[in-house]
Structures are given as structure tokens and as C-alpha cells.
């Protein structure tokens, strides 16, 4: 018998659509009336909230882009007075200004609810002891998973990641049954356990909820076979809410989106035209009841498909395929976002030029490795080895300062980096290509 919260996962689709429409109309009016950003956007298009009469009318709404959040930093998209905002989070690992997201008390309630439904879907109960090994602080991962677990009623331990040996001790001593962390951190934990002779398979751990970075079926098998736990998917993004926008069920047939709160669409990433169900395209999300910072038709740049057929688990919520690639060239390395434009911004000041470069990401065991290949230009070239080695060090220390990752910098000859149609592909992600 599903709990009260989980019953919302099984709504009749007609009933669900009615809820979605009512909430969509309400949030569109709220955004138009209280967010200066949307007032301006609607007026420029000659659009009124009452033009949204059916769910299909959502395509009339303007898209919201990540750049809109940057341009209106930090409070420009807010639609409530400051006194109603009880929490801020911010994006991690970018140069310049981060993206700041605001929450009202009700928003935090909704977020806790959807994160909780994600954990309930995986089988967590109030009898579980859950450790949160996502980072806390500005990043939404730690707090988001924490609140969701508390909502389920599990015993929650805010460990915050890192310090693997201590974490193993906690698992043993506190009889931890559930862990929330990035999949790469967990694989790292497995390696540490192997080294110190800790038997994860014989431990109390039963469930893992892994998100904040893309992972593969091979990793799932590796984790499940290596430790005997069940590895669950959890998906979210801070712009929309945080972890718990969607989650995997036992059928392992994609991730159920909590669409009574987050309305999904798939559009052609190039044209923005909405695509029919089942087709692959860019995921676009509308927050149906987020009051502090409502986002309409937010372009996630994540490429996936939506499946509306009933799931074998019995839930009626739409399923999305796990995210394996993006429509832009954003990389997620060890949970940190990196755009090639950020690398360009740090290459430019060195000699006033941006040489041809590419970012190559590989995965060895648990660790993602970043290599930056840079074509040497006459401006960058010096006739001494020390000059070129200093250049390598300068680039890698700037990267380290920006995203905290040790990147290997390789200097290559002009023409060594492949160009297609005269344009260089800046990102080679070898983690998911077999």
C-alpha cells in the first residue's frame, strides 16, 4: 500500500492533466504579475495569462534560458518579496557570477515532497538510516536529499561527502542502510573499501541514490554486483528545484518525472519546436508551483525522450531516459559543470589569442580525467622547453583555480585537433562512448 505521498505517483492521467492545467494557469499568472522579467517577456509578445486555456497552450509561453538567470542575477527572476524567501542556493563551479535560486517555505515543502517521493519509489522507509554524502553549502544536492530523507522519516546523517574511511566507519557503526552521493564518489568509496579491507557487501547498506552527474548501466552493474546494494537514479537541477525532479523506480525503465510539480516537454534543440511523445530532443521544464522563482519552459539542454506508456511498476508518471548527452557542450566532471567558453576565457589573457583547443574527458575506475589539448601557435611558442612547460602549468593552475580539478594540459601541433566544417569540436567525452 503506497504511502500518502506516493499515491500522487499513481494518479489517473486525466486527473493529473487537470491538476497540471490548474497549476500552470496559476503559476503563469503569478509569474506575469510578480516577476518583472516575465512581465516584460509577455508584454513584448502580446501574451496574457488568460491565453493559456489548455496544457497544449504551453507552447505559447516564452522559453527561459540559463543566460536569463545570469543576466538577472541574483534576484531579477524572483516573484515574491524578499521577506518570503527563506533559502538561497547557487550553482557550483562556474567563473564569474553563479546562478542563484530562491525558495519560499512552500517551495522547500514541494522540494522535500518530490525528493521524498523519489526515495519512497526506491524503497526507503522510516526504519532506514540514510547518509547524505552530497556536498552541502551552496550546491542543492546535500540539502535537497537531506530534506527528502527527513520527509520520508528516515534517520538522516549529514556527512557531506569526502573522508571515505570515516564514512566507512560510520556505515559500520551507525548501521547505515541508504547512501545519497554522486555515482563516481560511490565507486571511489568501493575502491577505498577494497584497499582497507572493508566488506561493503556484508555491510548494512541496501540502497544508493546516485545523481548530480551522468552515469551508465555499466556503472550500475559494477556498483550492484560489487556491493549488493540497489542503485537508484535521482535527477534534478537547481534552476528547477534541486535533486528530486525525477527518480528511477524498480522497473529500471527510465526516470519518473514528478510532473504534478515539474511539467516536461521535449523540443528540437535547434528550432525550439515541440516534438511528439517518444521523440528524442531537449528536455524543457516548467515549474508548476514554485513561487519564489517560477521558471517557464526552462531549457535544460539535457537530451532525452519522454515515455507516456504505463510503467510496469504501475506509476502513471511520465518516464524520461537517463541523460547521456547535452545539446550544448557543457561537461559535468566530478559533479562540477564546465563550459568550453570558460576555458576560452582563461586561455585568452595568456597571449591575447584563443588557440584551437579541445577538452577530452575519460573515466578510469571512479575518476573522471580532464585533458586539455592546446594547439601551439607562433605567439605561444618559445624556443625553450621551460617556456612551454610554464605555459602548461599556467593553464592547468588556472583550471584548478576555476573548477578545482587537476587537468592535464597537452601541447599539440597546429592541425592536430580535428575540425568539422571549419569549426572545432571543443568537447570529446569518452566516458559514455564505447
Amino acid at each position, binding site marked *: 500500500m503506497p504511502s500518502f505521498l506516493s499515491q500522487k505517483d499513481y494518479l489517473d492521467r486525466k486527473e493529473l492533466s487537470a491538476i497540471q492545467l490548474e497549476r500552470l494557469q496559476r503559476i503563469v499568472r503569478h509569474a506575469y504579475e510578480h516577476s518583472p522579467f516575465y512581465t516584460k517577456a509577455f508584454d513584448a509578445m502580446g501574451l496574457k495569462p488568460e491565453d493559456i486555456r489548455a496544457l497544449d497552450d504551453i507552447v505559447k509561453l516564452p522559453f527561459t534560458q540559463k543566460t536569463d538567470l545570469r543576466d538577472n542575477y541574483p534576484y531579477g527572476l524572483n516573484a515574491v518579496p524578499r521577506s518570503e524567501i527563506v533559502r538561497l542556493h547557487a550553482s557550483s563551479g562556474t567563473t564569474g557570477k553563479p546562478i542563484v535560486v530562491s525558495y519560499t517555505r512552500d517551495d522547500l515543502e514541494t522540494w522535500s515532497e518530490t525528493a521524498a517521493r523519489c526515495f519512497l519509489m526506491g524503497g526507503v522507509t522510516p526504519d532506514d538510516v540514510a547518509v547524505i554524502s552530497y556536498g552541502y553549502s551552496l550546491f542543492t544536492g546535500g540539502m535537497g536529499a537531506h530534506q527528502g530523507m527527513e520527509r520520508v522519516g528516515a534517520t538522516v546523517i549529514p556527512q557531506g561527502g569526502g573522508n571515505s574511511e570515516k564514512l566507512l566507519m560510520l556505515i559500520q557503526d551507525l548501521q547505515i542502510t541508504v547512501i545519497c552521493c554522486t555515482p563516481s564518489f560511490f565507486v571511489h568509496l568501493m575502491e577505498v573499501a577494497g584497499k582497507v579491507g572493508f566488506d561493503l557487501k556484508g555491510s548494512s547498506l541496501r540502497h544508493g541514490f546516485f545523481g548530480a552527474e551522468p552515469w551508465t548501466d555499466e556503472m550500475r552493474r559494477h556498483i550492484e554486483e560489487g556491493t549488493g546494494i540497489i542503485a537508484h537514479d535521482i535527477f534534478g537541477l537547481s534552476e528547477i528545484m534541486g535533486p528530486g525532479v525525477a527518480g528511477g523506480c524498480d522497473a529500471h525503465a527510465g526516470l519518473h518525472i514528478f510532473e504534478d510539480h515539474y511539467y516536461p516537454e521535449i523540443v528540437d534543440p535547434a528550432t525550439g519546436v515541440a516534438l511528439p511523445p517518444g521523440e528524442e530532443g531537449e528536455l524543457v521544464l516548467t515549474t508548476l508551483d514554485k513561487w519564489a522563482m517560477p521558471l517557464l519552459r526552462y531549457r535544460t539542454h539535457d537530451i532525452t525522450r519522454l515515455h507516456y506508456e504505463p510503467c510496469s511498476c504501475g506509476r502513471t508518471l511520465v518516464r524520461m531516459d537517463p541523460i547521456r548527452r547535452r545539446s550544448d557542450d557543457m561537461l559535468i566532471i566530478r559533479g562540477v559543470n564546465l563550459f568550453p567558453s570558460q576555458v576560452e576565457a582563461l586561455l585568452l589573457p595568456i597571449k591575447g589569442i584563443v588557440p584551437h583547443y579541445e577538452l577530452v574527458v575519460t573515466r578510469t575506475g571512479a575518476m573522471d580525467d580532464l585533458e586539455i589539448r592546446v594547439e*601551439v601557435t607562433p605567439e605561444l611558442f618559445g*624556443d*625553450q*622547453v621551460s617556456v612551454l612547460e610554464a605555459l602548461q602549468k599556467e593553464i592547468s593552475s588556472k583550471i584548478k583555480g576555476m573548477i578545482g580539478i587537476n587537468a592535464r594540459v597537452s601541447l599539440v601541433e*597546429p592541425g592536430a585537433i580535428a575540425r568539422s566544417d571549419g569549426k572545432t569540436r571543443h568537447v570529446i567525452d569518452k566516458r559514455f562512448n564505447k
Partner: protein
Amino acid sequence: MKIRQLSIFLENRAGRLAGVTKILGDAGIDILAISVADTTDFGILRVLVDDGEKAAEALKAQEIVCRLTDVSVVSVEGIPGGLAKVLETINASGVNIEYMYAVSQKKLPNPLMVFRFSDDPKARAALENAGVKLIDEEELF
């Protein structure tokens, strides 16, 4: 009195040295001296050629990164202790040697060495005072 040397950036992989020397050969360039400084990733090929400008053009046409640098060519006495005398003189002058390599030639009787100094005028003055002969381009080619 200074001599122009051509420095060439190369990735450290098979066939690159052959490729560059072929371009120079096809352009009718004569190589008098050659040296490679390498790391695991890349190397810098340094050559003394009879026509540096022409060689640089031929390489740039093939998108190869190179640069002309001024170096000094020193005539070393072909006897035991000949090179040591030159190096001691440089050391006494307080100048560092960035790099050095030998020239292969039959035109002049004494062995020749190419030097890049941290302070070229100072090193050259010290060598001249010690009676060490510096070679100019006309003598070399």
C-alpha cells in the same frame, strides 16, 4: 656576428622529425647543425640552416610553428680541454647557458658549438677577451 637559428615545435610522436627534415630538404635547405630538446609530450627541434628565412617560410606553409632566434657559434680548440676552457670562461662571466649543441661541418678546421646565453652581449665580450673565436654567418656558410 649573431647567427640565426630556427626553432621548431614538434609533438613527440613517430615520424615528426622525418616530416620536418623532408620539408626542409624539399625546399633546398642545408642543415648544418641539429639538436632536439624533448619532454614526454613535445620537443623543440633547433637547426642551423643556410637560409633561415626561406626555411621558416617553407615550414609555415605547412602550418608548422617555428621561430628564428639569435644564437652564438663558438670555435672550440680541437684539443683536450678545449671545450672546458670555453665553458669556464662563460661560467666566470656569470652568464648561464640556456642550451648548447655541436655543429657538424668540414669547412673550418676547429669544432664549432652553438650557444644560447642568458646574456648574449656579456658572454660574447667575455669570450672575446679570453681569445675565443666567435664565428659569423659568412664564415659558416
